[in-house]
């Protein structure tokens, strides 16, 4: 059973990775959702395989917890699911925003336009000019050499 679970986790994870590497942003999101599914399945599998739901009155081994599924991993999985949903929502909004501003959901095109934006940004506002104030008002004005040097 654990071999089987591991196999399924691996298949989901691999498929998710494959989608993550696609050009289409929506597929990337599906990839992320699949990978988080793989994670939840893994968490659940790690504590289970032991028996019934951890709800009183307990079936099987009674109070000791034998034969009862691990409640802690379930709590964690619940948390992971809700957070996973919130993240999926956030990523979907990002896709919408990216589409609205770039007009495309193709990663190649987005990378191209990002590159162009970065270059035009570089040209428009040279960080060297921004970060380093001109050293004005330095040295004495009655020293013409110093004055021109400062201006330069």
């Amino acid at each position, binding site marked *: *059973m*654990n*071999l089987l679970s591991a196999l399924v*986790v*691996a298949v989901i994870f*691999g*498929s*998710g*990775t*494959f989608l*993550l590497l*696609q050009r*289409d942003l929506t597929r990337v999101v*599906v990839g992320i*959702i*699949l990978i988080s*599914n793989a994670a*939840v*399945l*893994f968490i*659940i*599998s*790690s504590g289970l*395989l*032991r028996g019934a*739901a*951890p709800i*009183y009155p307990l079936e099987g081994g009674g*109070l*000791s917890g034998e034969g*009862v599924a*691990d*409640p802690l991993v*379930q*709590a964690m999985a*619940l948390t992971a*699911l809700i*957070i*996973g*949903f*919130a993240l999926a929502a*956030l990523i*979907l*909004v990002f*896709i*919408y925003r990216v*589409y609205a501003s770039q*007009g*495309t959901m*193709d990663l190649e095109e987005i990378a191209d336009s*990002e590159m162009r934006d970065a270059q035009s940004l570089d040209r428009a506002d040279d960080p060297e000019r*921004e*970060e380093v*104030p001109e050293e004005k*008002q*330095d*040295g*004495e*004005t009655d*020293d013409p050499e110093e004055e021109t040097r400062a201006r330069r």
Partner: protein
Amino acid sequence: MLPVLLPLIVALLSAPATLLAGILRLRTAAPVGAAFAALAALAVLWGWTTSGGEAVDAAWVPSWDMRFDVALDGFAALYALLATSVGFVVIVYASRYLLLHLEHEGRPETDVVRFYFFILLFMGSMVGLAMARDLILIFVFWDLTAIASYFLIAFDSHKAESRASALMALFVTGVTAILLLIGSLLLYAAHGTFSIPELANVVEPGPLLTGAGALILIAGLAKSAQTPFHFWLPRAMAAPTPVSAYLHSAAMAAAGVLLIGRVYPLVQKSDTLLTALLVVGFASIAVGGILALTRDTLKQILAYSTIAQYGFVVVMYGLGGAYGAGGAAFYVLTHALAKSALFLTAGTVTEATGNDKLSKLGGLAREMPLLALGSAAAAATLTSLPLTLGFFADEFFFAAALERGAVFAVAATLCAGTTLAYTWRFWSGLFLGERAGEAPVRVSRLLVSPVAFLGILCLFGGVYAIPFERLSEAAGAVSFENATPIDATYHFELLPEYFMAAGAYAVGAFLVVSRPVWRGAALGFSRVGKVVGPERMYRDWLHGVNRLSDIVHVLEISNLRGRVASVLLPTALMVGLAVVATPSGMHTVGEVRPGQIPLVLALGVVAAASVAATFTRLHITLALVLSSAGFSLAVAYAFYGAPDVALVAVLVEIMITILYFATMRLIPYEALRKQSQLPLTKGPRKVLISILAGAFAFVVAWGALSVPPAGETVATEHIRLTPEVHAGDAVTAILADFRGFDTLGEITVVCIVLLAVVTLIGHKNPESEEEIEAGGRAEREGATVERVTRSIAGLLYLPTLVVAVALLVNGYAEAGDGFSAGVVAALGVVLRHLALGSRGHGSLPPTKMATALAFSGLAIALAVAVVPAFLGDAPLTHYPAPGASVVYLGTLEIITAVLFDIGIAILVLGVLTGILSAFTHATPAAESGEKMSYEERHEGREGS
């Protein structure tokens, strides 16, 4: 307790109070700010005289031994008095100056509020810094001053120079502040306390003290603009003059020596540190003095003089002894009064003449006699002429040097001489000689009287210095840990200090007279400093960092998918290494019991669906394949014995599917079609990466799953405790009780995501006529199938809500909890919306309302968590206590854990409906004007 805390409270309250006053009525900002500064100064005086150095020491973060330990001892009183009283003078001055300044810059008058807010924030954090005795508390106030200084220096934020200067100040003082933190942590690691008085009792000289002390001292020296960190201070002159005056005399630069004085009980145990202070101090005096003699801009001269003056203070701490520690405090006091007066003088002169260059000014004594007299008193104090307060300051300096030996005495005399040279140059250049340029315009009395007031104080101190002496003695005693009797009276016998003073005057006079001889050398020094000085290194460093960031950025965006792989591959590598390094040696196949056949089938469907997702083309199919994988997973969870998870998984899967479609709706059909026709890149590299990733996941998962569960785990403990806390479902008990903090964190994250979604999506008015009409049209076209769905949805709405409530109420005893209840309720709302459209009963709650709902849920959960803290229990204690009897209302147990769960349910309901409502109310991308069509982009590319 009140006398100690009142000054701090008043000082910290002043900034928000002034901000409020300024917002309500612009004109009141300055008077309110000045009144608060004056009140704070009075509170410090009153507190110091009545409390007599009392301390308030309360637990802050007890588990980390951090304490809120503040004391209004002499040391704190001195710096707090400086910060508040100079703050008062500066605000009075600024009330006039700032309006003129803003007029020159063409900025709205409302900007003054920002100025008062930050300068009072600075004042408040200085008072806090002065009083704090816990190293972490000091660090907090320290950083607060850095933030305030950043905004003050960059007050003229439209000028690139101001922004760059502010950034420089923030970098230099902020990066070194980290060293303060590291030094504190080193001391804590060795001695287990952050309290300076406690540390002073236990530290021993040695490498640890030298190392930690050096780190702390570097922070202090950088803030006081000592060599080699001095370069930020002249740059900070980009700020308006009142800011410069405050920063130099009583706030920013003073904070540095404040820190040194505060940790001096530790520092003075290490001779290495004292020697280092001497070296840095003398170097700063030399660098500051020489450069002050070469500068032409008024504020630049004063800035370099400040560097030199704090060099004197640092040297005094380095010399040590009673005169060193007590004299240092006295020197800071004197310098603050004199330097702020001189800065304000520079500001007034520039305001009156429109000129800020020494070479273009002169002969102003006739037109501005009061200003000339006031600043003459201040300048005389700085140069320590007799009958001024400064005379005693230098006397103590000389006395401290004499105690250490003749070499130091000679050096001290020479140093004091440079002060006279540049101060004379500044004052005589302004007020004596021929008038250069046009006659000054008349300036407001508010721009002159603060200078005169400070000048009078300097002269008063020269005649009757006892109050200043008392304060400095008290302050010095805190640093020195012994009484520091300093004697600020004139003596009629000839003390050696008097000879040294005379020598210093002679040196100064010689420097003034021989100016043509050394001018070239001094300018050369300044030029060399520009080429190889620390400022150059700072710039090179900044450029390097900038370039690095550019390179990384280009790498990041040039190939986005490559970057994904570049994250995945190293991760895989590390995981692989971990697997190799820690072999479990156990890989069992695990039996499949007959009862688990359905589970195996469900897992098979999950795997098949996941694989199918990799070659699905159309987005709708993709979404359906994804959700079928999710539903099968939920089924698998149910067979795993996790009904709660299964329930939430089903519901979340539905929501994700709906959300996916909602997003697709926002994107034009053509774009989606183009997208789905993109080639599914099945390059061998991608397939290989995916297979590798899957293989790693397999190895890790199989290895982990093969290890049999240990006998007694946390989980068994949780199961055992579940009935104790009146719960039936162990999972719910864990979520609401045992690990409630995790849940609290999680739901906070979810709330933040809701805010992010709502903000990012930006929505138009949801009920616009057009939209309703469009919805109506769509509905009419929707034929009979819709009608069936609609009636079913109508019928299902109430039952879903009932199920939600049942899940909530029952959750503690049986399957279900706040999460599933919230999701079920949201599902009911959403289902009805989908069926009925955005009209009438079907409309989703407005996004704002949903957000409010979500946050009220969070508030309930937080209240349940926090209230026990007020009742003396640990946060998140639930009532009734474990084992106590519970009141039942039907099957509902009245316990606070259920209330917590209700909070979660409300929050989840709010978040889910909010997110969906944001999506449905969003403008489809094609309509939003910011988008550029694909063709347009293409054209643009060809053109370029």
